[in-house]
């Protein structure tokens, strides 16, 4: 609709701008009901606020050479166990900080704190994902040192966290064999957004109907560029390759 006279012919705006006369016929009374309406071309991303805050966090990480990872998975895929095992192996080699995201409780933060690692727990209440502003707040408390490793454990949820950039260098999705081999196809957004995928609990696959090769194939079907690691955080198998990769960071932004 025309914002100037409300006549339904938006195209004639341009005639006004060029100082021409009206070239179209009006088939209605010209009452100008919306004569002071204005069309504002906004053209802005809805997630702009989060994205800007994420870029702010990213700049902070780059300036301090902090390698920041955003770990995401369904509840129970083994994120916290993976963190514990990773910390045990790397804490003498690199300063490590952890931000824990959960809807309720500080159970995970307590598990990390027991390993003498600085940790900040974010409780999202009913929120289903972490947002960049929560990370910004957590950073004020944690004040991670230069050249450290910052591991963010997102809220256990294979859907919502995929949409919210936190400023991390890499998004890591963890999928465990107990979830079946078709999760990447059922929840493709997460796998499409991730840069790295960890297939966890590989030791349990003989007892399950999960075929690791099928699972790997489904991951790559959704995202052929995924960097894959296969391991069992509980048993410690396959951890070396993952830890080596962690020590290779910070990596260049994609």
């Amino acid at each position: 609709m025309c914002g100037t006279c409300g006549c339904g012919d938006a195209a004639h705006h341009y005639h006004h701008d060029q100082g021409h006369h009206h070239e179209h016929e009006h088939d209605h009374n010209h009452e100008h009901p919306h004569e002071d309406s204005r069309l504002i071309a906004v053209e802005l991303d809805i997630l702009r606020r989060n994205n800007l805050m994420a870029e702010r966090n990213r700049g902070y990480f780059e300036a301090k050479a902090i390698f920041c990872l955003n770990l995401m998975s369904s509840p129970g895929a083994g994120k916290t166990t993976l963190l514990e095992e990773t910390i045990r192996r790397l804490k003498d080699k690199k300063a490590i900080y952890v931000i824990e995201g959960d809807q309720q409780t500080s159970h995970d933060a307590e598990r990390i704190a027991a390993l003498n690692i600085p940790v900040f727990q974010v409780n999202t209440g009913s929120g289903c994902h972490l947002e960049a502003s929560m990370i910004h707040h957590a950073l004020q408390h944690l004040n991670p040192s230069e050249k450290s490793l910052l591991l963010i454990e997102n809220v256990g949820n294979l859907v919502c966290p995929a949409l919210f950039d936190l400023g991390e260098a890499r998004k890591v999705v963890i999928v465990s064999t107990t979830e079946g081999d078709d999760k990447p196809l059922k929840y493709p957004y997460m796998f499409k957004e991730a840069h790295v995928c960890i297939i966890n609990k590989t030791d349990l696959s003989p007892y399950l109907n999960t075929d690791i090769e099928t699972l790997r194939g489904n991951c790559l079907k959704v995202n052929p560029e995924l960097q894959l690691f296969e391991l069992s955080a509980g048993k410690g198998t396959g951890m070396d390759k993952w830890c080596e990769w962690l020590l290779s960071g910070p990596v260049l932004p994609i």
Partner: protein
Amino acid sequence: MHEVSIAQSIVDLAIQQAESHSAIEVEELELEIGVLSGIEIPALAFALESCVMGTWLEKTRIVRHDIPGEGKCGDCGESFPIKDMFSACPFCGSFAVRITKGKELRIKSIVIK
């Protein structure tokens, strides 16, 4: 669930834009939502109804354009419509498909008084 966050972001951004143009009323809000954006569109519509209550946007007409998916094959370079995130290229069978359209989450315009 994240549709509520998205709806709230839409309301905040639209109000901020209206204020920066000294509006006294927002008549229309035009959105572009890609079908591959990760948003459940009916859930977003429902969340928006709640989020606008008691704000400037309570009586605003919301116009939504749902943008269909389009992919471009990284191997053969062809573009084609896509309905999901793991379709193989219909021309060469490759899965190296980059999404070129359908991930939009954008406020296109507002009509203010």
